[in-house]
Structures are given as structure tokens and as C-alpha cells.
């Protein structure tokens, strides 16, 4: 019964959507704003990765909202899981030698790779989110391989707070020096150089730290509880 109703609803939804798709043909250029970013982006922001310049600069406010969403999820998850407040003593089963050694060997490499990805976000594909996620997967490996190790709660909270505050403060500095919130008040430098694009790498590094510590904190909370 429920299934038939659901399928009927879905058929209606599918028909409606396919009706509207005819007005947005696939593969045909149809943008105005996007074209402007491609043509002017490198000149205006100094970043050669246009996606990065859109994410961090043209639509930087969205990114601020997005790190806020992740922050909320990390805090909300902590609030939900610790609501009972009972800390149980866990029995830790040590990982096998191969797993432990492998993880210990891979962890610094993954960390370096993640850092590379977010530092070069304005030049190559990647950036704060991808780099942060890679770093968090490094921590996931540590939880699998070296089960007695934990990241310090204080340090991860500090990284979260400072990452978010850096973003806000840079935005406010833009308001003070450039007249607009998040305006790029630092010199753009030459395109394709590591030290270029003004505030974009700084913000992406802050985002990388914040996302990495939040995702690692989420995993930590899920493993720790219950």
C-alpha cells in the first residue's frame, strides 16, 4: 500500500522534473555570472583555480556559512551523544601489529598530503574542504590502528575556534581596509605563484584546519561514545 503510493508520487515527481529539464539543455553554455568569473577571475582575485576564487572570494559568505554548518554538526553531535553524561570504561582491543605499524607510517604522509592540498587550493584542484577531509581520514586511520591514542579535546576545540575566528577576522579586516566584508585587501601577487591571491590561501588554510579538526572531532565523538 505504502509502496504503491510512494511509487505513484515518484512517477509524478519524475514527470514534472523531466518536463522542466527541457528548458536547461545539457552541455550548452547558459551562464552569465560564470562567464564573468572565468574571464575576469584571475585578474580580479589572483587565483588560477577559478572554483577556489568563487568559493573563497566571490561567494566567500557561503563558505563562512558552510563551515558554520559543520561547526553546528560537530557541537550538536557532542550535545546529543553526551546528553546522558555517563562515561563508560571501554575495553580496548589492540590492533594487529601490521595494521598498527602501517597506520603509524601512513599517518604523517597523509597529514602532509592534506596540508599540501589546502595550501595549494588557489593553484590546483583542492582546497580547505578536501584537505581537511584528507587530514580527518588520517585521524580515522589512527583510531583504527592505534586504538589507545586520542586527539586532545582541548587542541581540537582550539583549532576549530581559531579557524573560524581567523575567517571572521579576515573578513572584518576586509571591511576596515577594503570597505567591504571579505574584500581582498592583500596584494594579489603574480598568478600561479604560491604566495599570490591575497587573502584566499589564508582563508583556505583556516578552513582546512577547521574542517579537519571538526571532522576528526565528529569521528572521535562517535567512536568514544556508547
Amino acid at each position: 500500500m505504502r509502496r504503491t503510493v510512494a511509487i505513484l508520487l515518484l512517477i509524478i515527481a519524475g514527470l514534472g522534473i523531466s518536463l522542466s529539464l527541457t528548458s536547461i539543455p545539457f552541455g550548452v553554455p547558459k551562464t552569465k555570472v560564470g562567464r564573468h568569473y572565468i574571464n575576469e577571475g584571475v585578474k580580479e582575485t589572483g587565483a588560477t583555480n577559478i572554483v577556489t576564487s568563487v568559493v573563497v572570494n566571490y561567494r566567500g559568505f557561503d563558505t563562512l556559512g558552510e563551515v558554520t554548518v559543520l561547526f553546528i554538526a560537530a557541537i550538536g553531535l557532542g550535545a546529543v551523544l553526551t546528553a546522558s553524561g555517563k562515561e563508560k570504561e571501554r575495553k580496548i582491543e589492540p590492533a594487529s601489529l601490521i595494521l598498527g605499524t602501517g597506520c603509524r607510517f601512513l599517518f604523517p604522509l597523509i597529514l602532509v598530503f592534506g596540508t599540501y592540498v589546502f595550501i595549494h587550493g588557489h593553484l590546483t584542484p583542492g582546497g580547505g574542504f578536501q584537505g581537511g577531509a584528507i587530514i580527518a581520514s588520517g585521524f580515522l586511520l589512527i583510531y583504527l590502528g592505534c586504538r589507545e591514542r586520542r586527539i586532545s579535546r582541548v587542541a581540537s576545540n582550539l583549532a576549530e575556534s581559531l579557524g573560524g575566528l581567523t575567517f571572521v577576522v579576515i573578513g572584518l579586516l576586509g571591511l576596515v581596509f577594503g570597505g567591504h566584508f571579505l574584500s581582498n585587501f592583500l596584494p594579489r601577487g603574480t598568478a600561479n605563484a604560491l604566495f599570490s591571491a591575497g587573502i584566499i590561501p589564508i582563508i583556505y588554510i583556516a578552513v582546512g584546519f577547521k574542517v579537519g579538526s571538526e571532522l576528526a572531532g565528529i569521528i572521535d565523538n562517535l567512536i568514544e561514545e556508547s
Partner: protein
Amino acid sequence: MIFIVSFLVVLMLVGAVAASIFRDLISAVISATLVSLVAAILFYLLAAPDVAMAEAAIGAALTAAIFIIAIRRTKRYEE
């Protein structure tokens, strides 16, 4: 080229259907991860390497990990 894409899309949809059929939740999560991975390849083919990286790192790896942690805390089989 178009055949590769069609094959990938079919594979992705099969993964999604499998995720809905499996009663073992771990298998369902693995199928959903397959969907995410194929989607990451499709993002790459759509000339979106940034999104592909994000989907592979966040959508596939981390999501699967938190699902599996959550399933270990609850029940593995659907009733």
C-alpha cells in the same frame, strides 16, 4: 566515451538499488559508497576535479566510516 559514461551511470544506479534491497546494513552502506565513488568519477568526467576530490574524500571515505561506526553501535540487520 559515451559508452563508458553510460556504463558508469548504470553501475551507479545499480548500486543505489542494491543499497535499498540489502537487509544487511553494512552491505547497504558499501553499495551507497559505491554510488559515491562512481559519482566522483562522473564529477571528474564533467570537468569538476575539485568536486571529485571532495566527493571522494568526504562523500565516500568519511561518510562510509561514520555509517559503519554507527552500525556497530546499533544493529547490523534490518528487521
